[in-house]
């Protein structure tokens, strides 16, 4: 039993070192640190995600997940470390920088306008218009319908429905589809299933898989390990602002991840002793 446990941990640790032999990560963070006064929220965190994969980001409250997202989204600027986009070092100073790189963050509170319809929300702030700033509704409606169809979102009856009339899962679908519509390369989903029922959770998880199938790099932040194991290809565990490790879904199990989240990786000497 003891051996089994240590083997799990060792394998998990090894995996964080040997990256799968795919091209350069779409987004890579190296030794990223972020302080708020004397509080170190991120203490040299490494993170990466590749095209076509779903990378889960898990950790207990205060592990630094939200801080990491906000650093990548340009809401916070990092204090130390480097961010690489498709192998090139980049700096992200504001939401506009992140948008330019093709990074879209779908926040927990969705950032949709309830009073506007699906098309209007998908194009919010980026409306198609002619030189006189008159809206061109037809092309917007067409592309919205196409995008939803490409993601197999079939439960939305009309794209001219106000978002207020949609269910939680449908709203989440609209927020995610917005990321696809704008040809983003990386989509961060912050707790996308937190407030959803069973059927709607299924809807959203299917959508997450489809995003990766379309070649996007998807980062799923979630507390729900069942969801994580269902859709993620790899799992990054953070604890108290540090990396614990990166685990491949097929070679780990929920117990190992829970241990990593709660206790972190064992100290190196401890592992050696047991090995």
């Amino acid at each position, binding site marked *: 039993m003891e051996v089994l446990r240590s083997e799990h941990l060792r394998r998990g640790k090894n995996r964080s070192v040997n990256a799968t032999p795919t091209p350069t990560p779409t987004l890579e963070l190296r030794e990223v640190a972020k302080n708020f006064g004397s509080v170190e929220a991120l203490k040299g965190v490494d993170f990466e995600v590749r095209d076509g994969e779903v990378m889960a980001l898990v950790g207990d409250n205060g592990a630094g997940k939200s801080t990491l997202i906000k650093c990548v989204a340009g809401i916070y600027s990092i204090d130390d470390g480097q961010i690489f986009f498709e192998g090139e070092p980049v700096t992200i100073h504001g*939401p*506009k920088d992140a*948008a330019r790189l093709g990074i879209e963050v779908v*926040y927990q*509170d*969705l*950032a*949709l*306008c*309830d*009073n*506007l319809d699906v098309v*209007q929300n998908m194009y*919010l*702030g*980026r*409306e198609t*218009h002619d030189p006189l*700033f*008159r*809206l061109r*509704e*037809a*092309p917007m*409606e*067409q592309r919205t*319908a196409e995008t939803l*169809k490409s993601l197999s979102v079939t439960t939305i009856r*009309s794209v001219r429905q*106000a978002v*207020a*009339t*949609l*269910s*939680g899962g449908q709203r989440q679908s609209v927020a995610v589809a917005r990321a696809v519509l704008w040809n983003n390369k990386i989509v961060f989903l912050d707790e996308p299933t937190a407030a959803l029922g069973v059927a709607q959770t299924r809807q959203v998880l299917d959508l997450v898989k489809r995003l990766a199938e379309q070649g996007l790099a998807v980062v799923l932040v979630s507390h729900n390990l069942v969801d994580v194991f269902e859709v993620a290809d790899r799992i990054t565990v953070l604890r108290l602002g540090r990396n614990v490790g990166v685990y491949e879904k097929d070679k780990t199990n929920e117990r190992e991840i829970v241990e990593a989240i709660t206790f972190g990786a064992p100290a190196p000497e401890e592992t050696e002793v047991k090995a």
Partner: protein
Amino acid sequence: MSSAAPAEIQAAAEDQDSIVAILRARWVAIRSGDVGSLPVIIGIIAIALYFNSKTSIFFSAVNFQNLIQQMAGVTVIAIGVVFVLLIGEIDLSIGYVSGIAGVSVAYFQQAGTGHQYPGLVALALAIATGLVIGLIQGSVIAFIGVPSFVVTLAGLLVSQGLILQVLGTQGVIGIQDKQINDIANYVLTKNTGWIVAIILTVALAGAAFGSYFSRLRAGLPTGNVILTIVRVAFFGGLAFAAVYICNQAKPRPGVPLVGLIFVFLVVLGGYVASRTTFGRHVYAVGGNAEAARRAGINVKLIRIIVFMISGAMAAMGGVILASRLNGIDLTAGGGTILLDSISAAVIGGVSLFGGRGRVSGALFGGLIIGMIANGIDLVGYSDAIKLITTGLILLAAVTLDTVLRRRQAAAGR
């Protein structure tokens, strides 16, 4: 599955456009709280029938002309209120801003003072005054974050003070300028009225069928073509009926110019709100300001522009009110102007909670407020009755809005 999908969608789209399906969808929308202008139309009919039963003058041509002139000031001010309510703010200064504009227009046409300008220049200066007041108030609200309720309450007091200051010694300025007095009092010739009705109908048909064909080309659901024709015919018919009635009025037949002015402003405002990126952003800010900000919309700029629109519309309304009285006195901008204008917008279906409502609501609400005032005067009830009635209708409108809002939220989950 995937091969069958396009045909299914095609069939669904065609199905969606049949009259039965549209009526059914409309009924579902009404039941889930999206009633559109239904309560307002019912209200207008009920009020008209009531006053008609009390006095035969109410449905006379000359009274129709009168009503148009009476409702004009409040309706125009209410257009600005609609924009302010759409972003979820309030503007309490509009009453006295309209007063300031009235004073300005009178001041800048005064003969023998060294600041006498042609009527239209005085009008432009008055509207510029409203724009500047809106710019100042909007900037304080947007940049510093002081609640609009307080900022515009301060604006109300300052504006009232300015009116007293300017008019202080004389207490009244008469307007002799013909152009200014014509704004509220000129009546179009019969034929001009007909031409206006024709232009309105053609423009309406152009807009309706333009959008119909652009959607048809794009392969989107177009709505039912018969319903589109019926709608154009109905509103075109209303325009012709209005011109016909005004042309029957006894001493001075014809459509009042001011009626044309407020219809033009309502159409313009409606166009800006529903067909331009600016209008879309106004609704977005009212619906979820944080979402709008994250979507890259300049929320502060939208707020400032909206308060400038409110100031300019209040100014235009003030000029109309001053023009109607051929002058201005110390009561300018006071009385029930503020509350009537806000009531007009709210009765017209514009939500006080932001993001819901149409500019045409100002016209419907202005009409209801105008009809009540006009009818009560005709029947000979006291001002007390007028205030109580207006108050109750306002309360009913806000209650309806609150109930519908809750109902819509419930329908969403």
